[in-house]
């Protein structure tokens, strides 16, 4: 069990994408120069266009938008509430200022959607007001994302002005024109293990996403070689706390925690019991909060002979911890995703279904096979970055009549506790 769960976390690999500045609170709002009606009107437009946009972040954006509108198009703010006023004309300005308000790691998806809406507005303006579909703007965004990293970064963060965006869109069209030379990614001829690990770290996270992450919770489904279905919940808090909950048939079978110095385990009807480190097995590596391939220290990397995984070439990197344990990571030579790993006891794990979570690329599926060929599949159901975990969650609770197992029983999700 620990091996599989450990494999899940070994797969939490950083991913390619946008560098990102530190998260910031919304800009302070000074006394408004505009009427409440005008501001509410813009809010209602935002709410209609982007229902998920948080109002608290929209407030400073509305002020900026109205200010810019008044400066660039005098009279339009007064005309705003007349029925013939077309808001669409100013979508570009609005989505740009909205983008400037979204700086947090958890807002990456919304930030991209705001940028897409802005690109759509720009494309519509180029087309003389003709409607442009979401698909076209999405294609344009995808092309921009393949360009040098500062282009998407500036666009997503609302730091690109309209002229620059127009040029960029022109560039994306030129790149698809017949005869245009395809942008070939520069590939170093001979990479060292450090080069590969550094590139892996750069490509598998947005900016310093790993560094910004404080805690993580994961819900996953495990299908064992025997056909059993288990649910695994894993909670991790910096620097090395973890809590693993194993459920079968909708009821918790046992929980394991590490409080920073000791390991503890609890089963229904029993108090928390300390367990020695040697019996924890590979579960102890769940305490590695950061992916070993992006860890700042404590790891050594060796480049092993390259291999292939399916039709793709892979780098093989030997990863060694300070305690001498380790594994071999398989890194795709094109995408720099960690597509698999092999352990000292001949277990192999293959990772797929990569998705970005809080700017970190994670494999949502891992298939594991042991030396005898028995296979298990672990599928991530939900990964929640920084969910609000607290230290005492990783410490054994005092026994009482309303502890976890009793409440779970009351909720009707668990069988009656076993007799201690």
């Amino acid at each position, binding site marked *: 069990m620990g091996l599989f769960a450990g494999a899940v976390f070994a797969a939490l690999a950083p991913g390619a994408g946008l560098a990102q500045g530190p998260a910031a609170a919304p800009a302070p709002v000074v006394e408004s120069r505009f009427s409440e009606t005008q501001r509410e009107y813009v809010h209602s437009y935002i709410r209609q266009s982007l229902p998920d946009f948080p109002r608290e972040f929209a407030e400073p954006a509305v002020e900026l938008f109205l200010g810019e509108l008044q400066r660039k198009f005098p009279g339009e703010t007064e005309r705003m509430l007349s029925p013939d006023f077309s808001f669409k004309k100013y979508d570009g300005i609005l989505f740009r200022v909205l983008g400037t308000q979204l700086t947090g790691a958890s807002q990456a998806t919304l930030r991209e959607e705001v940028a897409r809406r802005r690109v759509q507005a720009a494309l519509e303006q180029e087309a003389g007001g003709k409607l442009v579909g979401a698909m076209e703007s999405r294609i344009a965004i995808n092309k921009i994302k393949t360009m040098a990293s500062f282009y998407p970064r500036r666009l997503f963060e609302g730091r690109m002005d309209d002229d620059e965006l127009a040029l960029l869109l022109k560039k994306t069209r030129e790149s698809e024109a017949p005869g245009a030379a395809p942008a070939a990614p520069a590939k170093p001829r001979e990479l060292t293990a450090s080069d590969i690990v550094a590139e892996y770290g750069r490509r598998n996270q947005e900016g310093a996403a790993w560094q910004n992450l404080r805690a993580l*919770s994961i819900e996953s489904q495990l299908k064992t070689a025997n056909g059993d279905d288990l649910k695994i919940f894993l909670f991790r808090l910096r620097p090395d706390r973890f809590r693993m909950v194993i459920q079968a048939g909708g009821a918790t079978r046992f929980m394991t925690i590490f409080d920073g110095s000791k390991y503890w385990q609890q089963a229904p009807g029993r108090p928390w019991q300390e367990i020695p480190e040697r019996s924890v097995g590979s579960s102890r590596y769940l305490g590695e909060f950061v992916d070993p391939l992006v860890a700042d220290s404590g790891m050594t990397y060796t480049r092993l002979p390259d291999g292939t995984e399916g039709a793709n070439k892979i780098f093989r990197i030997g990863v060694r911890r300070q305690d001498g344990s380790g594994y071999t990571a398989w890194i795709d030579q094109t995408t720099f995703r960690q597509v698999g790993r092999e352990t000292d006891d001949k277990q192999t794990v293959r990772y797929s279904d990569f998705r970005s979570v809080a700017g970190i690329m994670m494999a949502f599926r891992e298939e594991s096979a042991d030396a005898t060929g028995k296979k298990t599949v672990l599928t991530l159901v939900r990964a929640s970055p*920084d969910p609000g975990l607290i230290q005492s*969650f990783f410490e054994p609770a005092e026994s009482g009549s309303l502890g976890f197992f009793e409440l779970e029983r009351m909720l009707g999700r668990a069988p009656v506790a076993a007799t201690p």
Partner: protein
Amino acid sequence: MSALRPLSAPAAARSRLRSTGGWALKQVLLFVAAGLVALYLLGATGGFLFVRYVRKNETISFIDVALLRWREVRRGMAAQQFAKAKLEWDAGNYQVAFLAYNFAVNNDPDNIPGLLEAARFLQAAGSNSMALTTLEAGLARAPDDERLIERTFSLLNTVGRDRRTLELLGQRPSSAFSGANGLALRTFELEATLNVGDVEGATKLLAQHPELARTPRALPVVARVLWESKQRLKAIELLSGHIRNRPETYDAYAQLAQWQLVSEMGDDAVRTAEKAAEKFPKDLAPKLLLIEAQGMRTNRGKEFNVAIEAYLKEFGSRPDGLLQLASLAGRRGWVELARGLYEVGALVQPELGGLGFCYADALLRQSRFRDVLQLLGQIEGQSPDAGPAFTVQLRNRQIIATAGLGDGPAVREAARRLAGALRNDGDAMELYRRTFQKLGITEAVAELSGRAAPARVAAGAGAASTK
């Protein structure tokens, strides 16, 4: 015969000219009149066509335009916009609905059902202040309208603008208080006076108007006045009687049970909660009230666990079910339950900040201030993008915990940050200021009042958490 004498030539010429000139003048006047009529008809037709087809007002008639019934025209247009606004609101098109309501209210400010609906829309859109502006404008035009009085003053008192209630009531002539709405106005006055903390004033007002104690709708407020003026048993009796006669309002049950618990009438509190649970079988709040009453009565004995089990079976799968129970555990300082709910919630909820706050509340009640600050720090560290609502929750607790530790500078810092988060919400700022005033955390009161904070560490802040 002299009258038949023929005219001289010049006189005849003058006469001919007069008769020809009169005819011509008549012709001109006729043309002018016909022209004016034609212009009028043209204008009326144009106006009608414009309103009917351009503005798409299907209720307008030609007669309304022709007879220059502008008020009717505007009302017709407004009625249509009100209907359109409601449809757009239901469809989630807030922007269009906002415009339509704005247009409709401006065109027909005397349409009271329309005004009330527009206010409801604005409240739903998150703007209590605009809703109040709309309601107050309506009330200025129709000061005796019962519906407007009810909505406006209820909302003012609910959002903490009690002083505005008193100001508006003060502007009314004394005759208004003896009219049909007199009792309602006095009730709002009494409630606002009590809300601003003027118990003496409320008591005096009640003594001047004893008829309030005989008015069913005023009874819960009258009972509050009695409670605040330390006539607790009388207050309980009055509210109990009110519930017997008017059992349809849950708030009265909740208030009564709380008073009974404070007065160590645990059995009565349980009975009140049970009655509420019977009366509102589908609601979550009465079941929580029962858990609270059982918890206090039995010191969290067997009945308490039974009530929790029944609640979890019924509401445990609802998204807010665990959080509401955790919130109660936090308010009452039931640390074990708050922690257990956090642990269970972690398996079903992706975001645990709310449950973490409830756990912090429970620790606060147990005066474990350092644990609270550590816990809040961990939650804050995981919420770099938190919005003002979350920040307000966090800072509020930080203020109480730091005040509990007697750390004046930290109280001021947390209060300053709270004021920053509340910068756009004067009503909430006032409510928090009043709360800290009650708790005796003077540094926080000073920061929220915008005054320089006194150097002294909050007196009695340690007791704040247990209040």
